[in-house]
């Protein structure tokens, strides 16, 4: 993920130019093209005056777009700069992030988020001090650390509210503390850690190889601890030193038991330097995508149940790729680092949104099939409760009693108060419906949920890794379908299912003509969706004596597609610029204050129409860009 493709570099340069201007984009471009550079080389490559390069670097570092690291080289400290292209890509997410925050924390939250996005990172006290002081708008170009400014036409009522909202955002991990490592390239952080570990362990090992292995193993755990440690601090769950100084003091006074109480006493530490936590937002976006997928797959109501479920476990998920290991080979590591996040039906129904109408969302099975083949299919979940042989209270809900799994103690409790008031009966019924939907989600071949036992009317977890794969496959298939119609998807799925196949076998399975199959396969290969392998049958290699096996290499296909999408996004932005350039004078005119005041008078009819066209075109291009961004998130981040 860390390496940049040419098209990604192009896109990032364009994005930076759009927001931070020509000079910044030049610096970013050089850094992306050449890799890490010293300031001297940047100046040399860009042909820019040293002063402006330095200024630009300050801005870019402030925005986390550039990371830096100092080495000892020949007795001198040499500082290298490197472009963090993923951060540059995140510039695209600004709109989404602000909207998401608005959903959670309303107007105030959105305002804070948009300011943080503009400022990169900022110390809380500075942020609070700037509130109300500055009345002039921050210009979009080059907001840097010295001129903090906050849009003052804000509806934020007081510094107190501001503080509280910020604290909540910190708790929700929408904002996180900026650490030293955030400003350094990942490789340097890793190397540093490795060197440290080496020094510590060097004495205990005789052979270099053993030492290396040990260091590598420890390194992995350390890096993980870095993440996990960071996570528990902010969540305030562990006794580790919390980032907020204010918090630490409070914690020492209050015991661990009454957490609820101490939460109230919290106050945001004003010495903290915060930034937007892009990873957390990706988690939110992924949830939204999953819900949309579930809706398409199963139905509206089920997807709403799913939304509630994901919302409930969301605070426990910190990063999209956090909850699964990159390499599956070390299972023990898996168990230490990654605990499954479960949620039971009972817990879910406690806080379930009462607005969601569940009644009638699941059809009753047709009568005749119900009686005929009811017992033909026995799954574990179904068999166990039946053996318990509890029949009390069942008759009331005969309609779908066959699915009830009254095994848990919770169910017993419900059954005991047979004369429960209608409110309780309704609640019980509702819970049952929720369970039905959860079962549906677990039963679907996409495996939206995985069952984790029967506690609390059934516990479920979400296998994000597999779901991510499924989502990628779905998107890939959509693209193939649009390009090659259903023939393409049919062939792709066959090849995915069976592995390497030659043309003839494929055509037999697909029930398609060989010639047709061949041409589609070849085109798909050209687009990078498929690969072909040649296996010669006889020694003088001849084409007609060679097997051609088609196969699907998921990672490669995804990478190629991703690079194409980056390219498409670049073109999209370029086209927007072209369109704007075409109407430059017109747009400038329309933005003049005197024209704005007398818009009807100063603008001719044709000018207005042209302006209208430009607006609709810009909107269309922007919408398209966001849709491409959605694809990138699915293919790369989820």
């Amino acid at each position, binding site marked *: 993920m860390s390496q940049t493709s040419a098209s990604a570099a192009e896109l990032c340069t364009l994005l930076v130019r759009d927001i931070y201007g020509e000079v910044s984009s030049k610096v970013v471009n050089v850094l992306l093209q050449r890799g890490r550079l010293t300031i001297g080389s940047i100046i040399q490559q860009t042909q820019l005056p040293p002063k402006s390069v330095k200024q630009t670097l300050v801005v870019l570092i402030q925005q986390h777009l550039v990371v830096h690291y100092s080495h000892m080289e020949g007795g001198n400290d040499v500082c290298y700069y490197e472009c963090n292209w993923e951060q540059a890509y995140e510039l695209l997410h600004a709109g989404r992030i602000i909207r998401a925050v608005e959903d959670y924390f309303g107007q105030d939250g959105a305002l804070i988020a948009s300011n943080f996005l503009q400022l990169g990172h900022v110390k809380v006290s500075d942020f609070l001090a700037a509130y109300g002081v500055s009345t002039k708008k921050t210009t979009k170009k080059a907001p840097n650390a010295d001129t903090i400014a906050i849009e003052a036409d804000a509806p934020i009522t007081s510094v107190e509210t501001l503080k509280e909202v910020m604290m909540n955002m910190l708790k929700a991990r929408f904002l996180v503390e900026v650490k030293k490592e955030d400003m350094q390239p990942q490789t340097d952080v890793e190397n540093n850690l490795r060197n440290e570990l080496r020094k510590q362990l060097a004495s205990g090992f005789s052979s270099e190889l053993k030492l290396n292995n040990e260091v590598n193993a420890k390194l992995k755990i350390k890096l993980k601890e870095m993440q996990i440690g960071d996570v528990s601090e902010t969540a305030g769950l562990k006794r580790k030193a919390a980032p907020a100084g204010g918090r630490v003091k409070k914690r020492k006074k209050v015991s661990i038991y009454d957490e609820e109480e101490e939460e109230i006493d919290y106050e945001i530490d004003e010495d903290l330097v915060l930034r937007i936590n892009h990873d957390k937002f990706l988690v939110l976006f992924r949830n939204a995508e999953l819900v949309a997928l579930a809706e398409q797959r199963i139905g509206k109501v*089920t997807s709403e149940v799913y939304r509630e479920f994901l919302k409930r476990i969301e605070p426990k998920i910190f990063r999209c790729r956090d909850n699964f290991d990159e390499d599956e080979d070390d299972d023990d590591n898996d168990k230490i680092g990654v605990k499954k996040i479960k949620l039971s039906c009972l817990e879910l129904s406690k806080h379930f949104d009462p607005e969601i*109408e569940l009644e009638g969302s699941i059809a009753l099975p047709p009568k005749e099939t119900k009686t005929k083949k009811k017992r033909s299919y026995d799954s574990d979940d179904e068999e166990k409760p039946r053996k318990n042989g509890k029949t009390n209270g069942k008759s009331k809900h005969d309609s779908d009693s066959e699915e009830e799994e009254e095994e848990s103690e919770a169910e017993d409790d419900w059954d005991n108060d047979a004369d429960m008031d209608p409110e309780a009966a309704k609640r019980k019924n509702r819970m049952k419906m929720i369970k039905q939907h959860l079962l549906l989600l677990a039963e679907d071949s996409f495996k939206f949920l995985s069952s984790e036992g029967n506690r609390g009317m059934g516990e479920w977890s979400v296998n994000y890794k597999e779901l991510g794969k499924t989502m990628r496959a779905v998107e890939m298939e959509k693209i193939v379908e649009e390009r090659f119609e259903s023939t393409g998807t049919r062939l792709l799925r066959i090849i995915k299912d069976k592995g390497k196949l030659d043309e003839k076998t494929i055509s037999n399975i697909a029930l398609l*003509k060989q010639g047709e199959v061949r041409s589609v396969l070849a085109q798909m290969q050209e687009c990078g969706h498929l690969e072909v392998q040649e296996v010669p049958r006889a020694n003088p290699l001849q084409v007609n004596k060679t097997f051609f096996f088609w196969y699907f290499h998921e990672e490669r296909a995804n990478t190629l597609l991703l690079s194409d999408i980056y390219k498409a996004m670049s073109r999209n932005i370029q086209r927007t610029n072209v369109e704007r350039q075409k109407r430059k004078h017109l747009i400038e005119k329309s933005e003049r204050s005197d024209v704005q005041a007398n818009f009807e008078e100063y603008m001719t009819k044709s000018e207005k129409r042209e302006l209208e066209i430009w607006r609709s075109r810009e909107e269309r291009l922007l919408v398209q860009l966001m849709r491409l961004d959605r694809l990138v998130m699915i293919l790369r981040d989820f």
Partner: protein
Amino acid sequence: MAEVPHATIQEFASDVYEQCLQAPGGYLFTIQELTDMTPGKSNIEVTSKVLNELLRDRRIQAMTQGTQNVFRVVSKEMIEKVKNMNADEEMLYSYIQDAAREGIWTKTLKAKSNMHNTTMSKCLKTLENKRYIKAIQSVKYPTRKIYMLYELTPSIEVSGGPWFTDRELDHEFINELSTAMLKFIASKTIPRARAKDSTAPAATTYPPNFTGYPTLNQIYLWVKNSNLTEVDLAEADIKALLDVLVYDGKIERVVGGTAYRALRKHESVNGFTESPCGRCPVFQLCREGGPVSASNCKYFEEWLEVGL
């Protein structure tokens, strides 16, 4: 021992032939059995003469089963046919007969019979006119002329199976049939929207653990009974068709792969292929400053025009 007169042999022969006809069709007689049938028991000489007589008249046919020599009785109509043929025709006929349902290529026929081209084509023509044999076309070798006995149906290798009509994969037939099957499966697995109270959210799914999903056998029987097609389809053919539907993403296997469920059609609309770049034929050439670029792209222009 006295010579058995030829007339007696003939008599014996027809006697044995009659007896053989009683046996179920396709029954293979061993020498021992035929010997037992011959009057004047276990006289090897007589038996061999009788057998020779029968073989000469083509009333029986010699074959081998493993290491054993066995005989098959030839029906009376068959004998009639053969009687009307001349020697060349007869030879060709027997080769074609041997080829059975696979059929035989004219070139192979020529090599085997060692006949002249004109003679052979003449003979084949006569046989064809008499409806003893027919020319068929093979899926594997569409250019070859292949002959087969008139009353036989070509084997799957030759005809290509039920999906082939006139040695071509019958697209329409496959599509029609799979669409019909899809409809059938959908009707069983997606609940019908209730018309009565349209205000309530329409139920979109059956409950979990629902078991009314049709199995392969049910679908097969439905196809059989629905008179959708006259082509004789086996359960395996239906399974192949279901597999294709699965690969098309229209249905999926449920209940451990034994039953099928229809899936709702998903939208294939996506940001990439909908933007001009996703379907651009010169995408690879496109770069800033190149012959094709975002500024001179006509596809973008078209796309933006449509939006207005």
